[in-house]
């Protein structure tokens, strides 16, 4: 049997993949350490809190995005969903004086509805999700623009208790970050441990085989989109809590920042592999670099260039890794296979 010889390089490959999260964590620590040497304020409690809450929304969105991308789809509508949810929430605060809980509920339901539409069009009409969610991005922006109608929800309209979610801390950790960490932890665990979530990986890994295995691919993909939308709705509410104001530009560009974080975090853009934790760490890494550049007084124009460079590096690294593994397997198979 060729199993024993084939197993070794594969094992190494797998452990490398598992180490992806560790690798990102190490890079984050390095970036923080280097920046702290150059600018001692970088390790202040306030600065660290900024690191965490700055990454929180993208990290939260990356959880849902990961689930969608793992199934070989993509959700580009998350950014505008954040904007819509945040504005509607703020609007209800200002004019209807609803409770915080009710506001959260509205934001989340709104997101879920967007996700459901994305999911339905993608799975029932079989339109590529790239197109569906791109269209959705514009539709929501348009609707958002009509609702907003040039207004701004400003901090005076928002109850103090609510904005506290954005900056109050527990043992030095912002509440916002705690919420996101809980979501990431729960989702990360669920993605490993439930049949439905393993189905997501199966669908992205080999769609034909998934159909033959009787996996209800449509339902699973639909669910992934609903989760992504729901988290975007939640992120919208948190956006309002964090910034205490919102106009019709809320969440612009988030969708690409989320996809970047997910890919940097080791989720395969063509589906099948990657983890929620990795994606969230990817979001943290991108934000950390962002802030490090600011702290090092590097021009903000560099931010985007660095983020883009990192994205390229992450993809090139993945590609290099899989080529290496393919070569390793080839030689293992050819030489040692005894009949």
């Amino acid at each position, binding site marked *: 049997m060729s199993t024993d010889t084939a*197993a070794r390089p*594969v094992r190494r490959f797998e452990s490398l993949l598992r180490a992806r999260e560790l690798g990102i964590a190490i890079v984050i620590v390095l970036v923080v350490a280097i920046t702290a040497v150059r600018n001692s304020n970088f390790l202040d409690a306030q600065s660290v809190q900024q690191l965490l809450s700055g990454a929180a929304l993208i990290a939260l969105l990356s959880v849902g995005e990961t689930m969608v991308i793992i199934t070989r789809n993509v959700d580009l509508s998350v950014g505008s969903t954040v904007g819509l949810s945040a504005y509607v929430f703020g609007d209800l605060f200002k004019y209807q004086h609803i409770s915080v809980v009710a506001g959260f509920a509205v934001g989340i339901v709104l997101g879920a509805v967007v996700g459901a539409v994305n999911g339905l069009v993608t799975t029932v009409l079989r339109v590529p999700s790239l197109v569906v969610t791109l269209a959705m991005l514009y539709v929501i922006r348009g609707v958002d623009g009509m609702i907003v109608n040039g207004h701004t929800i400003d901090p005076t309209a928002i109850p103090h208790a609510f904005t506290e979610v954005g900056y109050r801390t527990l043992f030095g950790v912002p509440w916002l970050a705690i919420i996101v960490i809980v979501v990431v932890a729960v989702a990360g665990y669920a993605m490993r*441990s*439930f049949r439905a979530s393993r189905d997501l990986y199966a669908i992205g890994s080999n769609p034909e085989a998934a159909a033959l*295995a*009787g996996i209800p691919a449509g339902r699973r993909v639909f669910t992934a989109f609903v989760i992504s939308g729901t988290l975007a709705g939640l992120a919208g509410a948190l956006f309002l809590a964090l910034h205490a104001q919102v106009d019709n530009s809320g969440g612009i560009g988030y969708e690409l920042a989320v996809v970047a974080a997910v890919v940097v975090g080791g989720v395969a853009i063509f589906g099948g592999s990657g983890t929620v934790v990795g994606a969230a760490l990817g979001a943290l890494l991108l934000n950390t670099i962002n802030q490090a550049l600011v702290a090092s007084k590097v021009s903000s124009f560099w931010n985007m260039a660095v983020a883009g460079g990192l994205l390229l590096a992450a993809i090139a690294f993945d590609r290099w890794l899989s080529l290496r593994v393919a070569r390793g397997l*080839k030689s293992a198979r050819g030489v040692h296979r005894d*009949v």
Partner: protein
Amino acid sequence: MTTPSDTNARLVLTNATKSFVTVRALADGSITLYPGEAHALLGENGAGKSTLVKILAGVYRPDGGELRIDDTPVEFNGPAAARAAGVSIIYQEPTLFPDLTVAENIFTGRQRLGTFRRIDRRAMNLDANEIFARLGVRLDPEQPARGLSVADQQIVEIAKALSFNSQVLVMDEPTAALTTVEVERLFEVMRTLRSHGTAVLFISHRLDEVFASCQRVTVMRDGRFVRTEPIEKVTVDDVIHSMVGRDLATLFPKTATVAGEPVLEVENLCTAGVFDNISLTVRRGEIVALAGLVGAGRSEVARAIFGIDRRDSGSVRVNGRTLPNGDPLAAMAAGVALVPEDRRQQGLVMAMGVDQNVALASIRRLARFGLVRRASERRLASNWSARLRIKSGRVRDAVATLSGGNQQKVVLAKWLARDPSLLIIDEPTRGIDVGTKAEVHRILDGLVGDGLAILMISSELPEVLGMADRVLVLREGRLTGSFSRADADETTIMRAATGQHAGAVA
């Protein structure tokens, strides 16, 4: 005709039909499977076997006909329903999830659950190990399926099928990629299952396997049921005659030719871990076949000769000139053509028309001032369509709409349009119906008659024996046999291919 009222039968399919937009894939699919019996389903490629299998699997819903299991009519609305009814399938091509572990692949959707419906990985891995023990193989349940050899993937498929404890097990050419030892192990498993009352449907092109391990045989041709017989009532020749429905000699119209000067000379070709020390010569006017099991490294040798993959060492000479390493354009310029194994992925641009595909390798010659005129493409394509008798609606039609045989002719036309001196052709007739198969063979025969040198890779022994002037056998990347047309027969080739000595031959 099968009898629908057969109450001993586990599964009875009667007069099933299935049509797709343009083709009638199945005109009369009928088969009766009995508990504890292995039933062989035979027929040439395109006879409708795979369609019948997919109906049993619940993948296709038949347009007509009846399916009964344990004398109860059933209708499957999907693969899950078929599985629930106790039918499990091992497909020709492994259907694994490369990103999931071996154990997850076996138990997809049926993972062992612990508290709170969480997957109990330990229990699942133990279950997988238990099945592997029953199969007598060692595989790590936690290893990802990515990177498993084809044989190991097939083992995982078998383990999956076993884990269902199915009443009916359908195996669609499970042995195509396996070595003798693995095939023997598979038959061992099949015997065990039969002794527990499982009905087995076995599809294979290797007739010796069928006669050694099946009790009943059904032959199909052109989408229709031909006959069902107990195995002891038929001979190999009977079966072949029923399958082909015509004289075998017409399938391999080989005329004797005299080999001329060498066209291809390969010396000590090596690529670490893939093949080792390959030396061979192909002369004008001869067909040299490269035989061996799937995975022996035959296609890799062809790719290295053509320069798609770089070689570690060794030399390739064409018409006396040495080819640079890893340079397909230089190989083409030297007069080499390569018709790859997988025409859909490697040989054709499926969405492009017949004309554009045919012109693809001659595009520089057709271009003037860097611009290609559609008219010249079309002229070239119509010319070759006529010569190779390519059946397509219009030359502009996308090749995706053509049958496999005509697609293969398009690939051939693309290369022949360059007027090569050496044609390397990998699995010339895989997935092609019998009629077109004979036509492709006739084309090849005509080409060597005109002085072309052909290096042919084939996994179909009849094709190797029928068409080749010389047969070289590759096993695990090494040449293990070289036979003249007169010396080559199934036994000698299979011995060299499997590395086995007298006696046990697959």
